[in-house]
């Protein structure tokens, strides 16, 4: 999903390449520094209780990254992640109890997490897809019932003590330790996804056979992905053990641990580092935002303890992410990330249309975190959303480059429609092509492609393109099935229809899309 979002930028012919100005660069640097400063001063500003919550958020961030490596990059759904995190936690407690020191405990926990994940990775070499999901689920439950209740190792039901080392005894210093660990793991993930290994892992996920023909060691990279994911999970488990100071088998339950972890990775947007980390820390903390003293009164249900609501919200968020917002949080924050990395803020009209919703959510959440009444929070959020919507309508949507891009896509779709109708038009309407409805049209009035766009395309089209286009014009008309990519966009492979006017531009556009 979001892997596609990370793909190199597409440049439409006739549009100058975006170059960031020096003042823009300064602005971006200031924003990035401010963001880092805010994240790393939170433990200083907050009370000791909230320091603990910050640590938990960072630990969840590492867990989210670990799920992301195995599920997002390697494409193996992991419903048994509590096994890796739990074994790390118990191993860390075990090592510290035997007086080997904190550093040894963290190393041992990460190592055993990696080893355990590697063992499951060996199974994944034989078993694939849905069956592998089932195996991870059964493995996690087995670990939770058998390994975590093994008395001499984990203390059985009594739990295992995991004291913090002297230099990280205070909540504040421990929060910094967790934040630094998270930063390190983000770095590892970043370097991984930019390296040959990361690309190989994604290639194996996309199509194992093609990857193998390209000379990629599919077995090795699959196992490597599992080991990296297990390493991160073990590290998170170790930090979790010392954060809680006491570990119990109950901490690693399927319904309170493994499934929410998968959910937070999916809601964050699998494959999107920033999205996963933000969503994970949100899942770790948002039960603390609810005022817990008084129970909530929910219509038709009665009074509800505030702690019971967040898991339900998580499940509903998951279903929304899967059915409606497919890229998850990573897709939503893409404009901001791209802007920070020195790119354009908006690339599509759709991104602009998503902003009021984001403003509504943030405008609601921020006052809500300070325990203001929810009616007020909703009012603030709605006000911000309306303002953002008006601003976007007035300034952003009129920008020509956004409109031109949308218009090109609309034309491609119209062309596809025509081709389908020509080839399938003789079939009865019940099974033939669906007639175009009014609701298919873009809701906002769309101006026609400006003439300069077409001429610009002609000017920049090279000779090879022209030859290829003329070939396409003589090709027989065939029905070409639409290819749907991960984001649900419909891409049209080159269709030979002689009567289209801006043929050259479309051809260039297609080639560009096909190449990236």
């Amino acid at each position, binding site marked *: 999903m979001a892997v596609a979002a990370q793909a190199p930028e597409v440049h439409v012919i006739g549009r100058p390449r975006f170059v960031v100005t020096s003042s823009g660069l300064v602005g971006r640097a200031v924003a990035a520094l401010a963001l880092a400063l805010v994240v790393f001063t939170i433990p200083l500003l907050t009370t000791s209780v909230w320091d603990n919550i910050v640590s938990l958020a960072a630990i969840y961030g590492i867990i989210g990254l670990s799920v992301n490596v195995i599920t997002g990059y390697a*494409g193996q*759904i992991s*419903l048994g992640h509590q096994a890796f995190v739990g074994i790390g936690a118990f191993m860390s407690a075990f090592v510290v109890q035997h007086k080997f020191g904190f550093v040894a405990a963290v190393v041992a926990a990460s190592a055993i997490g990696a080893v355990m994940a590697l063992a499951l990775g060996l*199974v994944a070499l*034989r*078993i*694939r*897809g*849905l*069956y592998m*999901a*089932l*195996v991870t*689920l*059964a*493995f996690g*439950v*087995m670990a*939770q*019932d*058998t390994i975590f*209740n*093994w*008395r001499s190792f984990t203390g*059985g039901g009594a739990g295992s003590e995991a004291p913090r080392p002297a230099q990280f005894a205070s909540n504040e210093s421990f929060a910094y330790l967790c934040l630094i660990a998270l930063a390190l793991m983000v770095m590892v993930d970043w370097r991984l996804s930019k390296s040959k290994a990361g690309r190989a892992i994604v290639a194996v996920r996309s199509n194992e056979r093609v990857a193998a023909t390209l000379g990629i060691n599919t077995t090795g990279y699959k196992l490597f992905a599992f080991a990296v994911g297990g390493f991160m999970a073990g590290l998170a488990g170790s930090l979790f053990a010392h954060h809680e100071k006491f570990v119990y088998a109950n901490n690693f339950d*399927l*319904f309170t641990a493994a*499934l929410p972890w*998968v*959910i937070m990775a*999916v809601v964050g947007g699998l494959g999107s580092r920033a999205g996963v980390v933000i969503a994970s820390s949100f899942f770790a903390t948002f039960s603390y935002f609810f005022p817990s003293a008084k129970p909530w009164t*929910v219509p038709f*249900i009665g009074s*509800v303890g505030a702690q*019971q*609501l967040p*898991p*339900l919200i*998580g*499940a*509903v968020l*998951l*279903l929304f992410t*899967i*059915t409606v917002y497919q890229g998850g949080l990573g897709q939503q924050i893409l404009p901001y990330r791209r802007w920070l990395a020195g790119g354009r803020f908006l690339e599509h009209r759709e991104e602009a249309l998503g902003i009021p919703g984001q403003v509504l959510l943030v405008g609601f959440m921020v006052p809500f975190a300070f325990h203001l009444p929810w009616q007020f929070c909703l009012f603030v959020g709605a006000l911000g959303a309306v303002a953002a919507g008006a601003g976007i309508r007035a300034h952003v949507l009129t920008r020509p480059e956004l409109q031109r891009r949308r218009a090109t896509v609309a034309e491609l779709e119209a062309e596809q429609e025509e081709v389908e109708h020509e080839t399938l038009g003789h079939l009865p309407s019940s*099974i033939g092509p669906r007639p175009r409805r009014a609701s298919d049209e873009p809701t906002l009035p769309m101006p026609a492609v400006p003439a300069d766009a077409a001429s610009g395309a002609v000017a920049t089209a090279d000779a090879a393109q022209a030859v290829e286009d003329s070939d396409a014009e003589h090709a027989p008309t065939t029905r070409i099935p639409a290819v*749907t990519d991960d984001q649900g966009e419909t891409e049209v492979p080159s269709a030979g229809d002689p009567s289209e006017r801006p043929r050259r531009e479309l051809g260039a556009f297609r080639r560009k899309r096909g190449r990236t």
Partner: protein
Amino acid sequence: MFQAIVLGLFQGATYAMLAVGLVLVYKGAKVFNFAQGEFGTLAVYVTWCMLGYQHLPYWLAAVIGLSCAVALGMVMERLIVRPLMGRSRITLLVATVGVALAVIQTTLIVAEPKPQNLDVAVNGNPTVIGQVGILPQQWLLIGVLAAVGILLALFLRTDYGHAVTATSQDAFASRVVGISVPAVSRIIWGSAGLLGGLAGLLQAPITGSFYPGYLTITGLIPAFTAAVIGGMDSLAGAFVGGLAVGVVQSVGQYQLQLKAGIPGGSGLVVFAMLIIVLMVRPRGLLGKEVAA
């Protein structure tokens, strides 16, 4: 040992009932339905609520509970499964996990998180088979399972049954010959809900107590193992696999957990069974194709 086998056979009947629902959904939608156990839990909670608060007769309460399970299956089909039809199966699987979690959390919120008890459907003295007392409820469970098997076999011979089989083999070709694929999908998810509801409703009085998500926690993994052993696309295999898993789990619990003192022995045995079957014979006992 003999007692463990007999008890396992009766426990396996529940797994078989759940597994049949799983196989039905797999045949229809090619998805592993993680919400199958929640159909049962929902039916049990609604029935319990109708008995305790509305004081309805048992049969009426059970019918209301089962219709809620069927409704959940159909609503899930309409809101979650159908919009996701063209997407990858892993996505669909995560979606069913989401539905299961949402239902569990809703029952947690609406009902209290403490264990409750459901009355047995039929009273009477246990019959003794070799030192094992079998409750009338357990005979009822076996009887209903047998009836479900016979009814399913008969159903698959009707026109609707043929439509279901055809759709599971080739959805596009079925559409061409005039079968309404959404209608078939609705039938499949509705009957999956009914089977899950029956499993929960008949099992809950035997275990003695139920709590939010109890059937998912206790029954889902054994039921999946049963479906895999039988072959994911074979209804008969699901019956056989369910009984087999019940017996093996019961024996494992007896030998490992009680005698050798290994915690979680029953889960360990089921996990081993799952791995062995997938490694050695991925298409199961009676299955035709290897699922991906």
